[in-house]
Protein backbone atom coordinates (compact mmCIF):
# COMPACT_ATOMS: atom_id res chain seq x y z
CA UNK A 1 0.00 0.00 0.00
CA UNK A 2 1.68 3.19 -1.07
CA UNK A 3 1.05 6.31 0.98
CA UNK A 4 -0.78 8.92 -1.13
CA UNK A 5 0.75 12.29 -1.80
CA UNK A 6 4.30 11.05 -1.85
CA UNK A 7 6.59 10.76 -4.80
CA UNK A 8 5.99 7.05 -5.68
CA UNK A 9 9.63 6.27 -6.33
CA UNK A 10 10.90 7.56 -2.95
CA UNK A 11 8.18 5.75 -1.02
CA UNK A 12 8.93 2.53 -2.76
CA UNK A 13 12.67 2.96 -2.26
CA UNK A 14 12.45 3.52 1.48
CA UNK A 15 9.93 0.74 1.90
CA UNK A 16 12.19 -1.52 -0.07
CA UNK A 17 15.04 -0.62 2.26
CA UNK A 18 12.93 -1.31 5.33
CA UNK A 19 11.93 -4.66 4.00
CA UNK A 20 15.50 -5.58 3.15
CA UNK A 21 16.50 -4.43 6.60
CA UNK A 22 13.79 -6.55 8.20
CA UNK A 23 14.72 -9.54 6.12
CA UNK A 24 18.43 -9.09 6.74
CA UNK A 25 18.08 -8.65 10.47
CA UNK A 26 15.60 -11.50 10.75
CA UNK A 27 17.89 -13.83 8.90
CA UNK A 28 20.92 -12.67 10.84
CA UNK A 29 19.14 -12.98 14.19
CA UNK A 30 17.90 -16.44 13.37
CA UNK A 31 21.31 -17.56 12.19
CA UNK A 32 22.84 -16.17 15.38
CA UNK A 33 20.33 -18.11 17.45
CA UNK A 34 21.46 -21.30 15.72
CA UNK A 35 25.15 -20.61 15.41
CA UNK A 36 25.66 -19.40 18.97
CA UNK A 37 24.43 -22.64 20.60
CA UNK A 38 26.45 -24.69 18.11
CA UNK A 39 29.66 -22.85 18.98
CA UNK A 40 29.02 -23.05 22.73
CA UNK A 41 28.33 -26.75 22.25
CA UNK A 42 31.62 -27.41 20.54
CA UNK A 43 33.67 -26.03 23.43
CA UNK A 44 34.24 -28.98 25.80
CA UNK A 45 32.79 -28.55 29.29
CA UNK A 46 35.10 -28.38 32.31
CA UNK A 47 33.90 -31.69 33.79
CA UNK A 48 35.30 -34.32 31.52
CA UNK A 49 33.40 -37.46 30.82
CA UNK A 50 34.48 -40.58 32.64
CA UNK A 51 33.45 -44.00 31.43
CA UNK A 52 31.02 -45.89 33.56
CA UNK A 53 33.29 -48.85 33.26
CA UNK A 54 36.15 -47.84 35.56
CA UNK A 55 36.97 -45.17 38.09
CA UNK A 56 40.00 -44.10 40.07
CA UNK A 57 38.88 -44.99 43.56
CA UNK A 58 41.88 -43.87 45.59
CA UNK A 59 45.57 -43.24 45.44
CA UNK A 60 47.99 -45.97 46.38
CA UNK A 61 48.91 -44.76 49.87
CA UNK A 62 45.51 -43.36 50.75
CA UNK A 63 44.06 -46.45 52.43
CA UNK A 64 45.85 -48.16 55.31
CA UNK A 65 45.51 -51.89 55.82
CA UNK A 66 42.20 -52.87 57.41
CA UNK A 67 40.26 -49.84 56.23
CA UNK A 68 37.62 -48.95 53.69
CA UNK A 69 36.44 -46.04 51.55
CA UNK A 70 33.09 -45.27 49.96
CA UNK A 71 33.39 -43.67 46.51
CA UNK A 72 31.10 -42.88 43.60
CA UNK A 73 31.01 -45.39 40.76
CA UNK A 74 28.68 -44.40 37.95
CA UNK A 75 25.60 -43.13 39.72
CA UNK A 76 25.87 -45.43 42.77
CA UNK A 77 28.11 -45.66 45.81
CA UNK A 78 30.83 -48.32 45.88
CA UNK A 79 33.16 -49.55 48.61
CA UNK A 80 36.92 -50.00 48.34
CA UNK A 81 38.35 -52.19 51.11
CA UNK A 82 42.00 -52.76 51.95
CA UNK A 83 42.11 -56.06 53.87
CA UNK A 84 44.30 -56.57 56.95
CA UNK A 85 46.76 -58.34 54.62
CA UNK A 86 46.95 -55.36 52.31
CA UNK A 87 44.85 -56.71 49.39
CA UNK A 88 42.30 -54.48 47.72
CA UNK A 89 38.68 -55.54 47.29
CA UNK A 90 35.87 -53.51 45.76
CA UNK A 91 32.11 -53.96 45.90
CA UNK A 92 28.92 -52.12 45.21
CA UNK A 93 28.08 -50.33 48.46
CA UNK A 94 24.34 -50.70 47.92
CA UNK A 95 23.02 -53.13 50.55
CA UNK A 96 20.95 -55.88 48.95
CA UNK A 97 18.32 -55.59 51.71
CA UNK A 98 16.87 -52.07 51.50
CA UNK A 99 19.59 -50.16 49.59
CA UNK A 100 21.32 -48.46 52.49
CA UNK A 101 25.01 -47.67 51.97
CA UNK A 102 27.30 -50.24 53.61
CA UNK A 103 30.67 -49.58 55.24
CA UNK A 104 33.80 -51.47 56.26
CA UNK A 105 34.12 -52.36 59.94
CA UNK A 106 37.78 -52.57 60.90
CA UNK A 107 36.88 -54.15 64.25
CA UNK A 108 34.88 -56.97 62.65
CA UNK A 109 36.95 -57.32 59.45
CA UNK A 110 33.62 -57.45 57.70
CA UNK A 111 31.36 -55.20 55.68
CA UNK A 112 28.44 -53.91 57.71
CA UNK A 113 25.15 -52.21 56.99
CA UNK A 114 24.13 -49.73 59.66
CA UNK A 115 20.43 -49.94 58.92
CA UNK A 116 19.62 -53.44 60.08
CA UNK A 117 22.96 -54.91 61.09
CA UNK A 118 23.50 -56.88 57.91
CA UNK A 119 27.00 -58.32 57.51
CA UNK A 120 28.98 -59.34 54.43
CA UNK A 121 32.35 -61.10 54.40
CA UNK A 122 35.37 -59.88 52.49
CA UNK A 123 34.17 -61.74 49.39
CA UNK A 124 30.94 -59.79 49.49
CA UNK A 125 28.88 -62.79 50.59
CA UNK A 126 25.93 -62.03 52.85
CA UNK A 127 26.73 -63.86 56.07
CA UNK A 128 24.41 -62.42 58.68
CA UNK A 129 21.28 -60.35 59.04
CA UNK A 130 18.60 -59.53 56.50
CA UNK A 131 20.56 -59.10 53.24
CA UNK A 132 19.29 -61.78 50.87
CA UNK A 133 22.08 -61.60 48.29
CA UNK A 134 25.81 -60.93 48.18
CA UNK A 135 27.21 -57.54 47.18
CA UNK A 136 28.14 -57.11 43.53
CA UNK A 137 31.92 -57.32 43.37
CA UNK A 138 34.21 -55.28 41.13
CA UNK A 139 37.76 -55.73 39.89
CA UNK A 140 40.57 -53.73 41.43
CA UNK A 141 43.88 -52.95 39.73
CA UNK A 142 46.74 -50.82 40.95
CA UNK A 143 48.14 -48.75 38.11
CA UNK A 144 51.09 -46.62 39.14
CA UNK A 145 49.90 -44.36 41.89
CA UNK A 146 46.22 -45.07 41.36
CA UNK A 147 43.84 -47.74 42.56
CA UNK A 148 41.40 -48.37 39.74
CA UNK A 149 38.06 -50.08 40.22
CA UNK A 150 36.27 -51.46 37.19
CA UNK A 151 33.21 -53.54 36.52
CA UNK A 152 33.83 -57.24 36.13
CA UNK A 153 33.85 -58.44 32.55
Amino acid sequence: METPGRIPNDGVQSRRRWISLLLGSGVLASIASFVYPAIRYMIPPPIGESTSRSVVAASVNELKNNSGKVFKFGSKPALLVRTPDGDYRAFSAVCTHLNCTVQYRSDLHEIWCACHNGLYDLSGRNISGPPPRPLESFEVHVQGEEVIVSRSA
Partner: protein
Amino acid sequence: MRFVAAIIASLLVAASLSAAPTPESTCITCHSMLDGKLADPVKKFESAVHRQVGLSCADCHGGNPADESMDSMSPAKGFRGVPRKTQVPEFCARCHSDIAYMHRFDPKMRADQLSQYLTSVHGKRLKQGDTKVAVCVDCHGVHNILPASDTRSPVYPVNIASTCARCHASEEHMRSYNIPTDQVSSYEKSVHAEILAQGDTAAPTCATCHGNHGATPPGVSSVANVCGTCHVFFEQLFNKSPHQPAFAAMGLPGCVQCHSNHEIVKPSDDWVGVGQDSVCATCHSQGDKGYTGAQKIAGDLANLKTRLARAEEILNTAERSGMEVSSAKVELGSAHEALVKARVNVHAFDDAEVQKLTDEGAQVSEKAYQAGVAALNERDVRRKGLGVSLIAIVLAISGLYLKIRQIESRPKT
Protein backbone atom coordinates in the same frame (compact mmCIF):
# COMPACT_ATOMS: atom_id res chain seq x y z
CA MET B 1 1.81 -119.78 54.25
CA ARG B 2 5.22 -119.45 55.82
CA PHE B 3 6.34 -122.42 53.83
CA VAL B 4 5.21 -120.94 50.53
CA ALA B 5 6.87 -117.66 51.37
CA ALA B 6 10.07 -119.46 52.21
CA ILE B 7 10.10 -121.31 48.89
CA ILE B 8 9.50 -118.13 46.96
CA ALA B 9 12.10 -116.32 49.00
CA SER B 10 14.71 -118.96 48.31
CA LEU B 11 13.95 -118.88 44.60
CA LEU B 12 14.27 -115.14 44.57
CA VAL B 13 17.45 -115.19 46.50
CA ALA B 14 18.87 -117.72 44.10
CA ALA B 15 17.77 -115.58 41.19
CA SER B 16 19.13 -112.40 42.67
CA LEU B 17 22.39 -114.08 43.63
CA SER B 18 22.92 -115.24 40.10
CA ALA B 19 21.91 -111.90 38.55
CA ALA B 20 22.63 -109.01 40.96
CA PRO B 21 26.16 -108.63 42.31
CA THR B 22 25.19 -106.68 45.50
CA PRO B 23 23.51 -108.77 48.16
CA GLU B 24 20.32 -107.05 49.35
CA SER B 25 19.03 -107.92 52.78
CA THR B 26 16.46 -110.66 52.79
CA CYS B 27 14.06 -108.28 54.52
CA ILE B 28 13.87 -106.23 51.36
CA THR B 29 13.74 -109.11 48.93
CA CYS B 30 10.92 -110.73 50.90
CA HIS B 31 8.89 -107.68 51.79
CA SER B 32 9.05 -106.32 48.24
CA MET B 33 7.00 -109.27 47.13
CA LEU B 34 4.27 -108.64 49.66
CA ASP B 35 1.62 -105.99 49.18
CA GLY B 36 0.00 -103.10 50.97
CA LYS B 37 1.43 -102.03 54.28
CA LEU B 38 4.08 -104.72 54.30
CA ALA B 39 5.61 -103.68 50.97
CA ASP B 40 5.34 -99.96 51.64
CA PRO B 41 8.55 -99.65 53.70
CA VAL B 42 10.60 -101.12 50.88
CA LYS B 43 9.30 -98.58 48.39
CA LYS B 44 9.84 -95.76 50.84
CA PHE B 45 13.33 -96.92 51.72
CA GLU B 46 14.54 -96.46 48.10
CA SER B 47 15.42 -92.83 48.57
CA ALA B 48 16.20 -92.86 52.26
CA VAL B 49 19.42 -91.33 53.58
CA HIS B 50 19.94 -94.38 55.77
CA ARG B 51 20.04 -96.54 52.65
CA GLN B 52 22.49 -94.12 50.98
CA VAL B 53 24.98 -94.62 53.81
CA GLY B 54 24.71 -98.38 53.58
CA LEU B 55 22.32 -99.18 56.40
CA SER B 56 19.38 -101.48 56.03
CA CYS B 57 16.31 -102.77 57.88
CA ALA B 58 18.17 -104.88 60.40
CA ASP B 59 20.32 -101.95 61.52
CA CYS B 60 17.20 -100.45 63.13
CA HIS B 61 14.85 -103.38 63.52
CA GLY B 62 17.43 -105.98 64.37
CA GLY B 63 17.13 -109.59 63.20
CA ASN B 64 19.23 -111.47 60.68
CA PRO B 65 19.34 -109.95 57.19
CA ALA B 66 21.08 -112.99 55.72
CA ASP B 67 18.50 -115.44 56.85
CA GLU B 68 15.79 -116.06 54.28
CA SER B 69 13.47 -117.85 56.67
CA MET B 70 10.96 -116.32 59.00
CA ASP B 71 13.48 -117.09 61.70
CA SER B 72 15.23 -113.91 60.71
CA MET B 73 12.54 -112.06 62.59
CA SER B 74 12.77 -113.87 65.90
CA PRO B 75 13.48 -111.89 69.06
CA ALA B 76 16.10 -114.51 69.88
CA LYS B 77 18.03 -113.35 66.81
CA GLY B 78 17.79 -109.77 68.10
CA PHE B 79 14.68 -108.71 66.19
CA ARG B 80 13.15 -105.58 67.75
CA GLY B 81 10.06 -105.31 65.59
CA VAL B 82 7.99 -102.14 65.25
CA PRO B 83 8.55 -99.93 68.29
CA ARG B 84 5.60 -98.54 70.21
CA LYS B 85 5.11 -94.79 69.93
CA THR B 86 6.47 -94.14 73.39
CA GLN B 87 9.58 -96.15 72.51
CA VAL B 88 10.36 -94.35 69.25
CA PRO B 89 12.72 -91.65 70.60
CA GLU B 90 14.92 -94.18 72.35
CA PHE B 91 14.67 -96.42 69.27
CA CYS B 92 16.24 -93.75 67.05
CA ALA B 93 18.59 -92.55 69.78
CA ARG B 94 20.20 -95.96 69.93
CA CYS B 95 22.36 -94.68 67.09
CA HIS B 96 21.64 -90.97 67.00
CA SER B 97 22.79 -90.33 70.56
CA ASP B 98 25.94 -92.40 70.10
CA ILE B 99 28.48 -89.78 69.09
CA ALA B 100 31.17 -92.25 68.14
CA TYR B 101 28.76 -94.16 65.92
CA MET B 102 27.29 -91.07 64.25
CA HIS B 103 30.69 -89.61 63.54
CA ARG B 104 31.50 -92.66 61.44
CA PHE B 105 28.92 -91.31 58.97
CA ASP B 106 28.98 -87.54 59.50
CA PRO B 107 31.66 -86.13 61.79
CA LYS B 108 29.88 -82.81 62.27
CA MET B 109 26.48 -84.29 63.06
CA ARG B 110 24.95 -83.49 66.44
CA ALA B 111 24.04 -86.31 68.79
CA ASP B 112 21.93 -84.48 71.35
CA GLN B 113 18.55 -84.72 69.69
CA LEU B 114 17.13 -87.07 72.32
CA SER B 115 18.31 -85.03 75.29
CA GLN B 116 16.85 -81.94 73.61
CA TYR B 117 13.63 -83.76 72.89
CA LEU B 118 13.20 -84.76 76.49
CA THR B 119 13.21 -81.07 77.50
CA SER B 120 10.49 -80.26 74.98
CA VAL B 121 6.76 -80.19 75.62
CA HIS B 122 6.43 -83.11 73.21
CA GLY B 123 9.07 -85.10 75.09
CA LYS B 124 7.72 -84.37 78.52
CA ARG B 125 4.19 -85.35 77.61
CA LEU B 126 5.36 -88.51 75.88
CA LYS B 127 7.04 -89.55 79.09
CA GLN B 128 3.69 -89.11 80.82
CA GLY B 129 2.16 -91.51 78.32
CA ASP B 130 0.55 -89.05 75.89
CA THR B 131 0.73 -90.73 72.49
CA LYS B 132 -0.79 -87.84 70.59
CA VAL B 133 2.41 -85.81 70.68
CA ALA B 134 5.04 -85.78 67.97
CA VAL B 135 7.88 -88.25 68.02
CA CYS B 136 10.84 -88.54 65.65
CA VAL B 137 8.98 -90.29 62.87
CA ASP B 138 6.07 -87.85 62.90
CA CYS B 139 8.29 -85.07 61.59
CA HIS B 140 11.09 -86.92 59.84
CA GLY B 141 9.11 -89.66 58.20
CA VAL B 142 9.67 -93.37 58.83
CA HIS B 143 11.39 -95.35 56.16
CA ASN B 144 11.89 -92.51 53.70
CA ILE B 145 13.93 -90.28 55.97
CA LEU B 146 15.82 -87.59 54.02
CA PRO B 147 18.39 -85.12 55.34
CA ALA B 148 16.95 -81.77 56.39
CA SER B 149 18.85 -80.10 53.56
CA ASP B 150 16.94 -82.15 50.96
CA THR B 151 14.07 -80.08 49.53
CA ARG B 152 11.80 -83.12 49.65
CA SER B 153 12.27 -83.61 53.38
CA PRO B 154 9.34 -82.63 55.62
CA VAL B 155 11.87 -80.81 57.80
CA TYR B 156 13.41 -78.78 54.96
CA PRO B 157 12.88 -75.18 56.13
CA VAL B 158 10.25 -74.40 53.51
CA ASN B 159 8.25 -77.50 54.50
CA ILE B 160 8.50 -77.23 58.27
CA ALA B 161 5.35 -75.13 58.77
CA SER B 162 3.16 -77.65 56.94
CA THR B 163 4.75 -80.50 58.89
CA CYS B 164 3.95 -78.84 62.24
CA ALA B 165 0.50 -78.01 60.87
CA ARG B 166 -0.32 -81.69 60.56
CA CYS B 167 -1.12 -81.68 64.25
CA HIS B 168 -1.09 -78.08 65.30
CA ALA B 169 -3.60 -76.93 62.72
CA SER B 170 -6.03 -79.75 63.42
CA GLU B 171 -8.88 -78.65 65.75
CA GLU B 172 -9.69 -82.24 66.46
CA HIS B 173 -6.17 -83.19 67.43
CA MET B 174 -5.47 -80.18 69.60
CA ARG B 175 -8.83 -79.95 71.34
CA SER B 176 -7.73 -81.62 74.53
CA TYR B 177 -4.71 -79.35 74.94
CA ASN B 178 -6.50 -76.00 74.80
CA ILE B 179 -3.93 -74.68 72.35
CA PRO B 180 -5.14 -72.54 69.43
CA THR B 181 -4.79 -74.03 65.97
CA ASP B 182 -4.36 -70.86 63.99
CA GLN B 183 -0.59 -70.56 64.25
CA VAL B 184 0.22 -71.90 60.81
CA SER B 185 -2.55 -70.01 59.06
CA SER B 186 -1.37 -66.84 60.82
CA TYR B 187 2.23 -67.61 59.93
CA GLU B 188 1.34 -68.03 56.25
CA LYS B 189 0.19 -64.40 56.25
CA SER B 190 3.48 -63.25 57.72
CA VAL B 191 6.39 -61.60 55.97
CA HIS B 192 8.62 -64.43 57.25
CA ALA B 193 6.58 -66.99 55.29
CA GLU B 194 6.73 -64.76 52.24
CA ILE B 195 10.52 -64.53 52.30
CA LEU B 196 10.83 -68.23 52.97
CA ALA B 197 8.65 -69.03 49.99
CA GLN B 198 10.95 -66.89 47.84
CA GLY B 199 13.73 -69.33 48.71
CA ASP B 200 15.64 -67.54 51.47
CA THR B 201 16.11 -70.49 53.85
CA ALA B 202 17.50 -68.14 56.50
CA ALA B 203 13.95 -66.85 57.03
CA PRO B 204 12.37 -68.05 60.28
CA THR B 205 9.85 -70.84 60.41
CA CYS B 206 8.35 -72.68 63.41
CA ALA B 207 11.58 -74.38 64.45
CA THR B 208 13.63 -71.18 64.25
CA CYS B 209 11.85 -69.56 67.18
CA HIS B 210 10.51 -72.62 68.97
CA GLY B 211 13.45 -74.96 68.54
CA ASN B 212 13.15 -78.22 66.66
CA HIS B 213 13.96 -81.11 68.94
CA GLY B 214 13.63 -79.09 72.11
CA ALA B 215 10.43 -77.45 70.91
CA THR B 216 9.12 -75.03 73.51
CA PRO B 217 7.36 -71.71 73.10
CA PRO B 218 9.64 -68.90 74.34
CA GLY B 219 8.65 -67.51 77.64
CA VAL B 220 7.08 -64.08 77.82
CA SER B 221 10.26 -62.48 79.17
CA SER B 222 12.48 -64.05 76.54
CA VAL B 223 10.48 -63.18 73.41
CA ALA B 224 12.67 -60.15 72.71
CA ASN B 225 15.74 -62.35 72.94
CA VAL B 226 14.31 -64.76 70.39
CA CYS B 227 13.35 -62.05 67.91
CA GLY B 228 16.62 -60.35 68.69
CA THR B 229 18.69 -63.24 67.37
CA CYS B 230 18.00 -61.79 63.91
CA HIS B 231 16.55 -58.37 64.67
CA VAL B 232 19.56 -57.30 66.67
CA PHE B 233 19.14 -53.51 66.66
CA PHE B 234 15.51 -53.72 67.62
CA GLU B 235 16.25 -55.88 70.63
CA GLN B 236 19.08 -53.59 71.74
CA LEU B 237 16.94 -50.48 71.39
CA PHE B 238 13.97 -52.12 73.08
CA ASN B 239 16.03 -53.26 76.04
CA LYS B 240 17.31 -49.72 76.60
CA SER B 241 13.87 -48.22 76.15
CA PRO B 242 11.28 -47.45 78.82
CA HIS B 243 9.11 -50.19 77.36
CA GLN B 244 11.37 -52.97 78.57
CA PRO B 245 10.88 -52.53 82.33
CA ALA B 246 7.25 -51.54 81.77
CA PHE B 247 6.45 -54.66 79.74
CA ALA B 248 8.39 -56.86 82.15
CA ALA B 249 6.41 -55.47 85.08
CA MET B 250 3.11 -56.05 83.26
CA GLY B 251 4.08 -59.46 81.98
CA LEU B 252 3.70 -58.37 78.37
CA PRO B 253 5.53 -60.41 75.71
CA GLY B 254 7.96 -57.81 74.36
CA CYS B 255 7.93 -57.61 70.55
CA VAL B 256 4.84 -59.79 70.24
CA GLN B 257 2.76 -57.14 72.00
CA CYS B 258 2.80 -54.94 68.91
CA HIS B 259 4.02 -57.27 66.18
CA SER B 260 2.11 -60.47 67.01
CA ASN B 261 3.81 -63.84 67.34
CA HIS B 262 2.88 -65.73 64.20
CA GLU B 263 1.10 -63.26 61.97
CA ILE B 264 4.09 -60.95 61.73
CA VAL B 265 3.21 -58.70 58.84
CA LYS B 266 5.14 -55.81 57.35
CA PRO B 267 4.58 -52.94 59.76
CA SER B 268 3.25 -49.70 58.40
CA ASP B 269 4.05 -46.18 59.57
CA ASP B 270 0.41 -45.92 60.66
CA TRP B 271 1.21 -48.21 63.58
CA VAL B 272 3.22 -45.38 65.12
CA GLY B 273 1.40 -42.45 66.70
CA VAL B 274 -2.13 -42.08 67.92
CA GLY B 275 -4.20 -42.63 64.83
CA GLN B 276 -6.74 -45.27 63.97
CA ASP B 277 -4.30 -48.08 63.21
CA SER B 278 -1.78 -47.18 65.86
CA VAL B 279 -0.51 -49.80 68.28
CA CYS B 280 0.67 -47.11 70.72
CA ALA B 281 -2.92 -46.06 71.39
CA THR B 282 -3.84 -49.54 72.65
CA CYS B 283 -2.06 -48.65 75.91
CA HIS B 284 -1.36 -44.93 75.88
CA SER B 285 -4.08 -42.37 76.21
CA GLN B 286 -4.26 -38.62 75.94
CA GLY B 287 -2.26 -36.87 78.60
CA ASP B 288 0.40 -39.48 79.36
CA LYS B 289 4.05 -39.08 78.31
CA GLY B 290 3.89 -42.01 75.96
CA TYR B 291 0.97 -40.53 74.07
CA THR B 292 2.75 -37.25 73.39
CA GLY B 293 5.96 -39.14 72.60
CA ALA B 294 4.15 -41.32 70.09
CA GLN B 295 2.58 -38.27 68.50
CA LYS B 296 6.00 -36.62 68.16
CA ILE B 297 7.60 -39.70 66.64
CA ALA B 298 4.77 -40.16 64.16
CA GLY B 299 4.98 -36.47 63.36
CA ASP B 300 8.72 -36.67 62.67
CA LEU B 301 8.31 -39.65 60.39
CA ALA B 302 5.43 -38.06 58.55
CA ASN B 303 7.39 -34.83 58.15
CA LEU B 304 10.34 -36.65 56.58
CA LYS B 305 8.07 -38.64 54.32
CA THR B 306 6.33 -35.47 53.13
CA ARG B 307 9.62 -33.78 52.34
CA LEU B 308 10.87 -36.88 50.55
CA ALA B 309 7.70 -37.06 48.49
CA ARG B 310 7.91 -33.37 47.64
CA ALA B 311 11.51 -33.69 46.51
CA GLU B 312 10.74 -36.81 44.51
CA GLU B 313 7.76 -35.17 42.85
CA ILE B 314 9.63 -32.11 41.71
CA LEU B 315 12.56 -34.18 40.48
CA ASN B 316 10.19 -36.41 38.53
CA THR B 317 8.46 -33.40 37.02
CA ALA B 318 11.83 -31.99 36.01
CA GLU B 319 12.81 -35.33 34.54
CA ARG B 320 9.59 -35.63 32.59
CA SER B 321 10.16 -32.15 31.16
CA GLY B 322 13.44 -33.48 29.83
CA MET B 323 15.80 -32.16 32.48
CA GLU B 324 18.50 -34.51 33.65
CA VAL B 325 18.32 -34.88 37.43
CA SER B 326 19.80 -38.33 38.00
CA SER B 327 22.55 -37.11 40.36
CA ALA B 328 20.02 -35.27 42.54
CA LYS B 329 17.96 -38.45 42.66
CA VAL B 330 21.01 -40.39 43.79
CA GLU B 331 21.64 -37.85 46.57
CA LEU B 332 18.03 -38.28 47.65
CA GLY B 333 18.88 -41.93 48.29
CA SER B 334 20.53 -40.99 51.57
CA ALA B 335 17.29 -39.34 52.68
CA HIS B 336 15.57 -42.66 52.06
CA GLU B 337 18.29 -44.28 54.13
CA ALA B 338 17.60 -41.82 56.95
CA LEU B 339 13.93 -42.84 56.85
CA VAL B 340 14.87 -46.52 57.03
CA LYS B 341 17.08 -45.85 60.04
CA ALA B 342 14.45 -43.62 61.67
CA ARG B 343 11.95 -46.47 61.49
CA VAL B 344 14.48 -48.65 63.30
CA ASN B 345 14.96 -45.98 65.96
CA VAL B 346 11.23 -45.92 66.68
CA HIS B 347 11.99 -48.91 68.89
CA ALA B 348 13.98 -46.71 71.28
CA PHE B 349 10.58 -45.16 72.10
CA ASP B 350 12.35 -41.83 72.54
CA ASP B 351 11.41 -39.11 70.09
CA ALA B 352 14.85 -37.49 70.31
CA GLU B 353 16.40 -40.59 68.75
CA VAL B 354 14.00 -40.50 65.87
CA GLN B 355 14.20 -36.78 65.37
CA LYS B 356 17.94 -36.66 64.86
CA LEU B 357 17.58 -39.00 61.91
CA THR B 358 14.51 -37.37 60.43
CA ASP B 359 16.20 -33.96 60.65
CA GLU B 360 19.17 -35.32 58.70
CA GLY B 361 16.86 -36.80 56.10
CA ALA B 362 14.86 -33.60 55.89
CA GLN B 363 18.03 -31.62 55.14
CA VAL B 364 18.99 -33.92 52.29
CA SER B 365 15.46 -33.82 50.92
CA GLU B 366 15.52 -30.05 51.00
CA LYS B 367 18.75 -29.99 48.99
CA ALA B 368 17.28 -32.34 46.44
CA TYR B 369 14.14 -30.23 46.27
CA GLN B 370 16.26 -27.18 45.54
CA ALA B 371 18.02 -29.11 42.79
CA GLY B 372 14.60 -29.84 41.34
CA VAL B 373 13.65 -26.17 41.52
CA ALA B 374 16.89 -25.28 39.75
CA ALA B 375 16.16 -27.85 37.06
CA LEU B 376 12.71 -26.42 36.47
CA ASN B 377 14.17 -22.92 36.30
CA GLU B 378 16.65 -24.12 33.72
CA ARG B 379 13.75 -25.58 31.79
CA ASP B 380 12.00 -22.22 31.87
CA VAL B 381 15.19 -20.51 30.70
CA ARG B 382 15.26 -22.88 27.77
CA ARG B 383 11.68 -22.09 26.93
CA LYS B 384 12.43 -18.40 27.09
CA GLY B 385 15.40 -18.96 24.83
CA LEU B 386 13.07 -20.80 22.50
CA GLY B 387 10.75 -17.82 22.60
CA VAL B 388 13.58 -15.52 21.60
CA SER B 389 14.64 -17.69 18.70
CA LEU B 390 11.02 -18.00 17.61
CA ILE B 391 10.79 -14.24 17.53
CA ALA B 392 13.89 -14.12 15.37
CA ILE B 393 12.32 -16.74 13.11
CA VAL B 394 9.03 -14.87 12.87
CA LEU B 395 11.01 -11.75 11.98
CA ALA B 396 12.85 -13.64 9.28
CA ILE B 397 9.64 -15.16 7.93
CA SER B 398 7.81 -11.84 7.82
CA GLY B 399 10.87 -10.29 6.16
CA LEU B 400 10.79 -13.06 3.56
CA TYR B 401 7.09 -12.66 3.02
CA LEU B 402 7.30 -8.93 2.55
CA LYS B 403 10.28 -9.34 0.24
CA ILE B 404 8.33 -11.76 -1.89
CA ARG B 405 5.40 -9.40 -2.08
CA GLN B 406 7.72 -6.57 -2.93
CA ILE B 407 9.48 -8.48 -5.66
CA GLU B 408 6.28 -9.70 -7.20
CA SER B 409 4.54 -6.35 -7.20
CA ARG B 410 7.38 -4.85 -9.22
CA PRO B 411 6.46 -4.26 -12.83
CA LYS B 412 8.02 -7.12 -14.73
CA THR B 413 10.88 -6.04 -16.98
